[in-house]
């Protein structure tokens, strides 16, 4: 830790931010039960303080992502605990703790680029296993596996795996093979095949909302592959790829099931009790909230289906106001933008960060813009804010990847033999 004052200041900043929100809950909340409020305060501030000490065990160059993560997670705990009345949302609180733990897992998983790149075939296998789980246990029946005490959405776990798969395949860009008249990079084809298979599987599962996220992760990796120093991708290839995406999207819309097409083209104000119900209620709630909100637990949107997940942005706007909702989005953006402040030190980690940023921004865009009728409505979550264990865990893993990218391990590389360097070019410090 190079600057203990900075660490303490960050601790205080997060603590004061949460305390300020809790004060707002106490004074502006609806029929606040003191006991419930004290439990909420203890849970939020307690988690803050405990995590400060946990972080001290990790000797990192920077803790930016960790503080931002803690800030946004406990903000979401406060938000979720006020929907419909002030009481700690235990389920969401636990998933936030899971998310924090997952961030540590993600951190350890990719911190050493040499190790993870050597295990990339296992990453593919993991993706295959998750797809198998989807085929066997969810499929077109449901998107979740119900374990009784909790539900799991296996497709969520493919997101961080795909990010890693994209990043670990970067170095292969140099290994082209002559096949017929073409220079082929086999791993590119494998990666495209994996992405296409995942997207088709999601189509079959009727989880169309997640397809843009997978496509964005792949697109970020694709863009960085064609930018890779020794790669020779022509503009024709780029235009061709863009055209292929547009054609695929057009075919997708054409082949989409009726209920999806109805959602794509619905005028929500003509169908406020049918396909436009959630969006119209969300927009009304945002309007009622205004800039400063109606006060925690004073909204009505908690009576609408998926208020805590798919339309959570509107629920926050209603109770806390558009200003606080935007600030929450800014905190998530800062997490995604942290590689701009603390640049990753290798191309592998840079690609990893781009994939995570793509996943976060696209998911937020789908959720927020969809629920506010700017684009068709899809049922995806906002990372760290929406209720949902699988989403929280995978978002935590991806946040951990960002932390790892800013605190990488290069010790092994320094001792590596020159003849092995060819395999890890993508992981070299830039």
């Amino acid at each position, binding site marked *: 830790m190079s600057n203990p004052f900075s660490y303490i200041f960050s601790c205080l900043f997060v603590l004061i931010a949460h305390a300020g929100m809790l004060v707002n809950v106490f004074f502006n909340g609806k029929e606040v039960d003191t006991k419930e409020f004290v439990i909420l305060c203890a849970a939020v501030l307690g988690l803050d303080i405990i995590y400060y000490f946990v972080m001290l065990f990790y000797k990192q160059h920077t803790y930016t992502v960790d503080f931002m993560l803690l800030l946004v997670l406990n903000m979401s705990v406060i938000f979720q605990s006020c929907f419909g009345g002030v009481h700690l949302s235990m389920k969401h609180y636990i998933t936030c703790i899971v998310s924090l733990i997952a961030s540590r897992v993600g951190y350890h998983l990719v911190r050493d680029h040499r190790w993870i790149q050597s295990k990339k075939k296992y990453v593919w296998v993991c993706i295959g296993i998750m797809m198998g789980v989807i085929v066997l246990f969810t499929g077109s029946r449901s998107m979740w596996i119900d374990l009784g005490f909790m539900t799991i959405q296996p497709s969520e776990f493919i997101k961080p795996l795909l990010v890693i798969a994209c990043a670990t395949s970067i170095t292969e860009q140099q290994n082209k093979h002559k096949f017929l008249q073409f220079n082929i990079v086999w791993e590119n084809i494998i990666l495209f095949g994996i992405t296409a298979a995942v997207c088709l599987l999601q189509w079959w599962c009727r989880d169309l909302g997640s397809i843009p996220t997978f496509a964005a992760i792949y697109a970020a990796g694709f863009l960085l592959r064609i930018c890779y120093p020794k790669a020779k991708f022509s503009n024709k290839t780029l235009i061709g790829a863009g055209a292929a995406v547009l054609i695929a999207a057009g075919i997708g819309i054409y082949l989409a099931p009726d209920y999806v097409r109805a959602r794509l083209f619905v005028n929500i104000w003509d169908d406020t009790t049918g396909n436009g119900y959630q969006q119209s209620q969300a927009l009304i709630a945002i*309007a009622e909230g205004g800039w400063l909100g109606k006060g925690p637990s004073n909204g009505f949107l908690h009576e609408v289906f998926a208020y805590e997940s798919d339309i959570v942005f509107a629920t926050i706007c209603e109770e806390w106001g*558009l200003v606080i909702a935007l600030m929450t989005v800014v905190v998530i953006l800062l997490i995604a933008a942290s590689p701009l402040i603390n640049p990753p030190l290798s191309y592998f980690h840079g690609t990893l960060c781009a994939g995570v940023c793509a996943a976060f921004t696209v998911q937020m865009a789908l959720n927020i813009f969809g629920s506010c009728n700017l684009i068709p409505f899809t049922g995806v979550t906002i990372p760290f804010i929406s209720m949902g264990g699988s989403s929280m865990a995978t978002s935590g893993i991806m946040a951990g990847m960002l932390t790892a990218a800013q605190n990488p391990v290069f010790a092994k590389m320094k001792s590596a033999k020159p003849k092995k360097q060819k395999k890890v070019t993508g992981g070299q410090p830039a």
Partner: protein
Amino acid sequence: MKSIRRTQSVITLFLLVFIGGMALLVYKINKEAPFYMMHSDNHQLGKVYDRNGDVLFDAAGTGYDENHFLDVGNLIGDDKGQMENTLVAQNIDKLNNYSFSEGLVKEGGKAAIYTTLDHAANRAVYNAYMGAKGCTVAYNYKTGELLVCTSLPSIDVTKGYANIGELESGTLISKAMYGTVPGSTQKVSTVISALEIMGPDRLFSKTYNCSGQYMNRSGKPIDCHQSYGHGDQNIQQAVENSCNPFFAQLVEDPDLPLGRLKDMYRKLGYAVNDDKPQYIDIDGIQCEKASTTLTDSYDFNTQWGCIGQGDTLVSPMQLMMWQSAIANGTGKMTMPHLIDHVTDVYGNTTETAKTKESAQLFTPDTAETVKRILLTNGSNHYTGSISGYVLGIKSGTAQVKEGAEENALLVGFVSDERNPIAFCVVLENKYSTPVYAEQIVKTLLDSLCS
């Protein structure tokens, strides 16, 4: 380091696209929030006032005299969704006591619509019908301010719609906005067309004989209301006598070719034959224009349409607007408006009405000639029944329900710079009521000009 910058560029690209989308979203929410709010159960509506500050609509609806809103019920409407073509339904967003920064203002919000209507005059005209059905519309033909617009039967919106199934036909619409058989008031349009096509000298030189019935060139009889006939007449006499055989012969005259007649009717705003129906927008309220069937100069239905019966339909509003083009002497209609100004939740004026004119329908010379004809008709026939006013006027009797009933119509204008009022009065089933259309006009003018 360049390669790392590439990864940062991709990250920046994603972030910028998202931030751009968020900026658009915030702008959209700010702009459209009042609209969203109108779909909320919690919305608070401001009031609608007449030109003297009398309330015409109040969502609370309490604290008013019995039937306070009855005479304007189907024009001003309410927010219950039963009457769509009304002022409140079409302008409900303007009454929204809400702003995104201020939130919902439950008390003291100043969002309001100030109309041009004169509620006292409107009520007086409503009462003058004495329970009969019909409608009356009047406006200032210089400024376009609608002063009176009442339609009977009407509804007191504060009493709700529990008995909606028992309401009489036409209760929930303002009849001034919908097409009705114009009767001989249609002859004004035919005179205008003939003047535009033939010119005044040739038209005034024409005389046709009326013997009480005219057998037209396709062998169909055109009856006159005066069974023993009017004898030889020129256009001035025919208008005053409202002589059907004269106008049938005028339509057959080779100097009035059907093609040009159709063109002229279209210029006046008629949907001729299969033309697409047209509407006039009056502060969001859709008002039907006119429609007729013109197929052959010798055809009974064509002649009957030019006389104002059969397929011809014209809204009373449109009949009144043509009078403005005549009264102003310009050949251009003054477009009517009902909203004078609108205030927002803070009381700031956000909209103010402006006087607008239509395109040129006919020449000022034609306007002056028709004005003279109508003023002569007024001075010769209406100084007794509608005393105290210099009136240009034309009556009409419309056969409806396949001739079972007759409606009385009066369209006209007051030739007075201080009271530039054009009007149209419709009295339905005139033989079933002791009221005369002239009495309603007299009440109307007395109320507005006093």
